[in-house]
């Protein structure tokens, strides 16, 4: 019947336009930075909005961790080996937090400093026996390896 | 009004429900003007057969065609009234029928007076008695243009007078070339029909 075919056509049209609109909306959303995730380089270039909650990922730079002996305050640099961002944080750090460790910090930029409200230690997907780590460290390859993968 | 000629062709229809074979290799053709009573003991599969022909159950094996077309494409030619009330309690008689039939008010009021519900069009269905509710559901027979009627136990809860009225309506429908299938446990007196006996298939 003719009306049946027309109905079917309308349904297909509806489905196609529905998906079309959805794809359009998703494309629009993805063209914006939804993640609000920045690298230290981006922050150094001033690309990150200030006073907004953002996330920064990188490595804890060696020899930059300052702990306040009286309180839980801690400050450290997060680096992507190009630029550093100074992060201050007050609270209990995760067990895996150490120098040379990958971290994601969440917080806001206040007067040039990053005030973190949360510090997440990223445990990487590498499993290694200690001897291997030691060998790598001695040859200086470890940092390269760790830096190489974000 | 005379219907376009329509026929239903059922071939090799079988149905199994809850591991029980209800009917097997059922084949028949329903011609314009035919009135068929499906009879059989409780649980013989009368309702199942009716609902299958109405397209409410999937066909397990076999085919049903209407005017050579598959059943699924001709559902709007069917008027089905089942066990359930078919009307919503919280709506008025008129609103219920308006939704199901799409007819205008005058037409519907005439149909209501035909089934003895004159003046009840503004009452909510929940205010009616059971028999009156049934009459309300059956009022659709007076205002719908579908050529195929499938009525599951249409006579339940009806008084003698209404039974007679319904018989007359079905006779007219058949005279106009329509097809009517129904089930009942009280064989109607004033209706000419053929009977299909469903027995337990063992």
């Amino acid at each position, binding site marked *: 019947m003719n009306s049946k075919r027309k109905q079917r056509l309308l349904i297909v049209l509806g489905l196609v336009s529905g998906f079309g609109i959805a794809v359009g909306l998703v494309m629009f959303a993805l063209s914006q930075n*939804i993640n609000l995730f920045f690298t230290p380089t981006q922050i150094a270039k001033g690309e990150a909005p200030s006073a*907004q909650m953002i996330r920064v990922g990188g490595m804890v730079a060696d020899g930059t961790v300052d702990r306040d002996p009286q309180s839980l305050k801690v400050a450290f640099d997060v680096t992507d080996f190009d630029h550093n961002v100074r992060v201050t944080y007050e609270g209990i750090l995760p067990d895996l937090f150490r120098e040379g460790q990958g971290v994601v910090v969440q917080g806001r930029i206040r007067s040039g400093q990053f005030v973190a409200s949360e510090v997440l230690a990223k445990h990487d997907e590498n499993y290694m026996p200690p001897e291997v780590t030691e060998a790598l460290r001695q040859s200086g390859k470890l940092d390269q390896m760790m830096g190489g993968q974000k | 009004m005379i219907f376009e000629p329509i026929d239903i062709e059922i071939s090799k229809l079988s149905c199994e429900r809850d591991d029980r074979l209800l009917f097997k290799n059922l084949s028949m053709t329903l011609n314009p003007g035919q009135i068929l009573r499906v009879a059989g003991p409780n649980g013989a599969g009368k*309702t*199942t057969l009716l609902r299958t022909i109405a397209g*409410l159950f*999937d066909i397990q094996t076999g085919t049903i065609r209407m005017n050579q077309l598959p059943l699924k494409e001709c559902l709007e030619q069917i008027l089905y009234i089942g066990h359930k009330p078919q009307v919503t309690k919280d709506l008025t008689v008129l609103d219920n029928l308006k939704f*199901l039939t799409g007819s205008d008010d005058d037409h519907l009021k005439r149909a209501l007076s035909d089934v003895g519900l004159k003046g009840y069009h503004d009452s909510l269905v929940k205010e009616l008695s059971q028999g009156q509710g049934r009459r309300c559901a059956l009022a659709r027979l007076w205002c719908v243009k579908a050529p195929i009627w499938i009525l599951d136990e249409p006579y339940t809860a009806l008084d003698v007078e209404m039974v007679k009225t319904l018989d007359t309506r079905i006779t007219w429908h058949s005279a106009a070339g329509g097809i009517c299938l129904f089930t009942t446990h009280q064989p109607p007196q004033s209706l000419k029909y053929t009977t299909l006996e469903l027995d337990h298939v063992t």
Partner: protein
Amino acid sequence: MSLERRMLTRELKLNVARPGEIFKPMWFLILVVSMLPLALAPDSDLLSEIGSAMIWVATLLALLLNTEHLFQSDFSDGVLEQWLFLNRPLAWLVGLKLIAHWLFHVLPLILITPIAGIMLSVPTDVLWALLVTLVIATPALTCFSGLGAALTLGSSRSGILGVLVMMPLFVPIVILAAGVLIRAMDGSDTLPLLALLGAFSVVAATVVPIAVSAAIRLNIGGSN
């Protein structure tokens, strides 16, 4: 009168006849919101911080509460099976029913959230964000919970099960909505997230009615 108008008029009249169905979820929402400050200390800073999220969750629950029986009465009256004879694709009719449900049951719920917001001293701009997320996200929520309701139609002890079954599917919606609220509190750009939410609702509105119609057919085929 076209079938579509008939359908919507019927829904309207049904809702006029059963006003309780509309007010029950609203009452629930207000009750939850008034219990919250009693359970917490009435610290208005804390309240305004978590208030919008609480209202969102409470609205979600209230919505589930009234979608649970979306098709139940039509199904047991046998009106639902009459839809198959109406010369329209079942999915289209289901879509109309869902639209009507959204208009008559969900929209009123959204409209009273500002009252809840004032009770929890939610800041005005966050309140706006809350309203917008609810308007954009509820079509998807309605569709999914409608599917839950349709899947459990034939089960004698369905109750809240249909809704529970659908709960996991709400996760992306809740996360996105929460993201919008957090950003609104920061005063940052909420548009991209709203676009994602919108995409979700559009996809749900196109696909879910088809799944619902399959579920309804299934239950009509099984009821005996």
